[in-house]
C-alpha cells in the first residue's frame, strides 16, 4: 500500500555558497502493507525522522518516489484524509489558539466533509482515546502530556486514514502512560484496519506493537525482520542493539 522506492535525501551543509551536502538517506526502499505495523528503529541522527517527513510529504526526496496506493505522496490530495501523523513533542502539537474540539475537526474541515453529526463524531473520537466529552472546550495548555498526546491521536484518527505515521509519538511520555497509549493504539488498529509506520528508538516499544521492524542506521536499512524473528537478527549492528537492551534489562532486575 505504502511503497518507498529508492529514495535519497541530502541537506546542504552550512554556508550560502557551500557545495557540500550531507547525505541523510541513501537508497531506502521498503513497503508497508495494508493493516501492518511497520517499526523503524534507529539511533538519533540515523535519518529516521527525515524518512517520516518524506513519507508525510512535508519534504520532497531528492531521488526516488514514495507511493501511496500507486500515487505520489507529494500531491497533497493523495495525502488528504488517507495519511495522518502523530508527532513527538506534545507541547507544540496543538495550535494554542484552538480548543480540543477545533483541533480534532481541523482535518475534517479541510476535507470539506462538514456534516451535522460532527459534534458526536468528536465525542466518539474522544471516548475512543479514553477522554470524556468535557475535554472538548479545553485549550492545549490545560492538558497534561498524556492527554495532549491522546488528543493528537484522536485528531489523526478523525478522517479515518488508512495509514498513520508515528514519529517518536510516545517517547516523551512517562512509562505508565506509554503502556496505556500503546494498548490504545493496538485496539484502534484492530478497529479501523489501519497501517502504522512506527518510528522509534525504543526496541521494546517496537517489539510490543510492530509486526515487522526495519533497523535503520546511517540513512540505510541495516536489516528488515518480522517481529517473531527479532532475536535472530543477522547484522552486527542489530545484534549489538539487542545486546544493549538485554544487559539493560539484567541490570534492571538486579
Amino acid at each position, binding site marked *: 500500500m505504502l511503497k518507498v522506492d529508492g529514495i535519497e535525501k541530502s541537506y546542504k551543509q552550512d554556508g*550560502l555558497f557551500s557545495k557540500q551536502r550531507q547525505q541523510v538517506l541513501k537508497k531506502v526502499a521498503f513497503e508497508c502493507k495494508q493493516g501492518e505495523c511497520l517499526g523503524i528503529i534507529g539511533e538519533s541522527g540515523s535519518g529516521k525522522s527525515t524518512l517520516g*517527513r518524506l513519507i*508525510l*510529504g*512535508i519534504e520532497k526526496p531528492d531521488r526516488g518516489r514514495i507511493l501511496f496506493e500507486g500515487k505520489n505522496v507529494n500531491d*497533497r*490530495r*493523495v*495525502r*488528504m*484524509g488517507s*495519511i*495522518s*501523523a502523530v*508527532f*513527538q*513533542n506534545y507541547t*507544540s*502539537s*496543538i*495550535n*494554542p*489558539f484552538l*480548543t480540543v474540539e477545533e*483541533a480534532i475537526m*481541523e*482535518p475534517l474541515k*479541510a476535507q470539506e466533509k462538514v456534516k451535522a453529526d460532527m459534534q458526536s463524531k468528536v465525542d466518539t473520537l474522544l471516548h475512543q482515546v479514553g477522554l470524556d466529552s468535557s475535554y472538548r*472546550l*479545553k*485549550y492545549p*495548555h*490545560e492538558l497534561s502530556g498524556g492527554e495532549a498526546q491522546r488528543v*493528537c491521536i484522536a*485528531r*489523526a484518527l478523525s*478522517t479515518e486514514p488508512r495509514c498513520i*505515521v508515528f514519529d517518536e509519538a510516545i517517547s516523551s511520555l512517562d512509562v505508565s502512560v506509554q503502556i496505556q497509549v500503546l494498548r490504545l493504539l493496538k485496539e484502534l488498529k484492530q478497529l479501523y484496519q489501519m497501517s502504522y509506520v512506527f518510528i522509534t528508538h525504543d526496541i521494546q516499544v517496537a517489539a510490543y506493537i510492530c509486526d515487522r521492524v526495519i533497523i535503520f542506521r546511517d540513512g540505510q536499512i541495516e536489516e528488515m525482520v518480522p517481529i517473531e524473528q527479532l532475536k535472530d537478527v543477522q547484522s552486527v549492528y542489530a545484534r549489538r542493539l539487542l545486546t544493549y537492551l538485554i544487559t539493560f534489562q539484567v541490570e534492571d532486575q538486579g
Partner: protein
Amino acid sequence: MLMRLLRNLSKDKLAMTSLAVIVIIVAAGIFAPWCAPHDPEEVNMKLRYASSSWGYWLGNDHLGRCVLSRLIYGIRPSVLWVLVALMMSVLLGAIVGFIAGYFKGKTDAWIMRVCDVMLSFPGYVMTLAVVGILGAGLEHILIAFVVMKWAWFARVIRTSVMQFSEMEYVKFAKASGIGSFRIITKHIVPVTFADVAVIASGSMCSMMLQISGLSFLGLGIQAPHAEWGMMLNEAREVMFSRPELMLAPGLAIVIVVSAFNFLSDALQIALNPKLMTSKGKLRKKEVGKTVYEYSRG
C-alpha cells in the same frame, strides 16, 4: 478573537487608559472641523502671543492663531497619516515576510537579500534623499517611510514566521494535506499576530517622532497647515519668553507616543493564548461569589 483581546485588555488599567487616549485622539483628528473651536489657519495679529483665555484655551501663537485648534488639526498628519503609512508598510512587510518565512529555501534567500539592500541605507538619509528628489511635503515623507520600513518589518516577521512554521501542528496540517494558504491564515497568522502588533506599535512611536523631526526641519508639511513638529519649530524663537507654546505640541507628542508604547506592552500580554481557559466564565462567577460572601461576613 477581538472580543477576547478586549476582555483581556480590560483587566489592565494602564492599557485601557492608553487605548482610551488613542481612541479619543484619533476621533478628535478625524472630526477635527467639529472639535476645533477656531479655524487653525485664521491669523489674528491682535491676539499675538496671547495667553490662555476662555475663547482660546491654550492661547495663541506668533500669528495669533488658536493653539488648541492647530493641535487638533495637527493630529491628522502627525497621527492619522503616520498610522496609514505604518499600516501600509506592515502589510507589505507581512506579506513578504510570510512568504519568505513559510516557503524558506531559495525564495527566502532572494527576498532577504533584497531586504538587506534596503536595510543597508540609513533611514534618515534615504528619507532626506526622497524628499530632495520629490520635493518637501508630507506625502513624500510617507512614501519614503513605506519604502524604507517594509524591509525591516519583513525581516522581523519572517523570523517569527520561521519559528512558528517549525511547530508540530503546522507539520501535522501539512501532512494531512491542508493547503499552504489555509495553514498560513489558520495557524501562523494568529500566533505571529502578537509579535506583529508589538513591533508595529513600537515603530509607530519612532515614525511619529521622525515625522515631527522632519517637519521641525521644515521638510514635512508646508507652512500654513498645522503639524506638531512644525508647531515646535515655530515656537522655537520664543522658547525662553513663552515656553508654554512649546509645551502644548511637545506634551501631545509625548502623550501619544507613551500611549502607543504602553498599549504595545499590554498587547503582548493580552495576546498570550495561555490566558484563555475553558472555564473562564465560571472562574469569574466564583470570584464574584467569594467577594460577596466576604463582604457579607
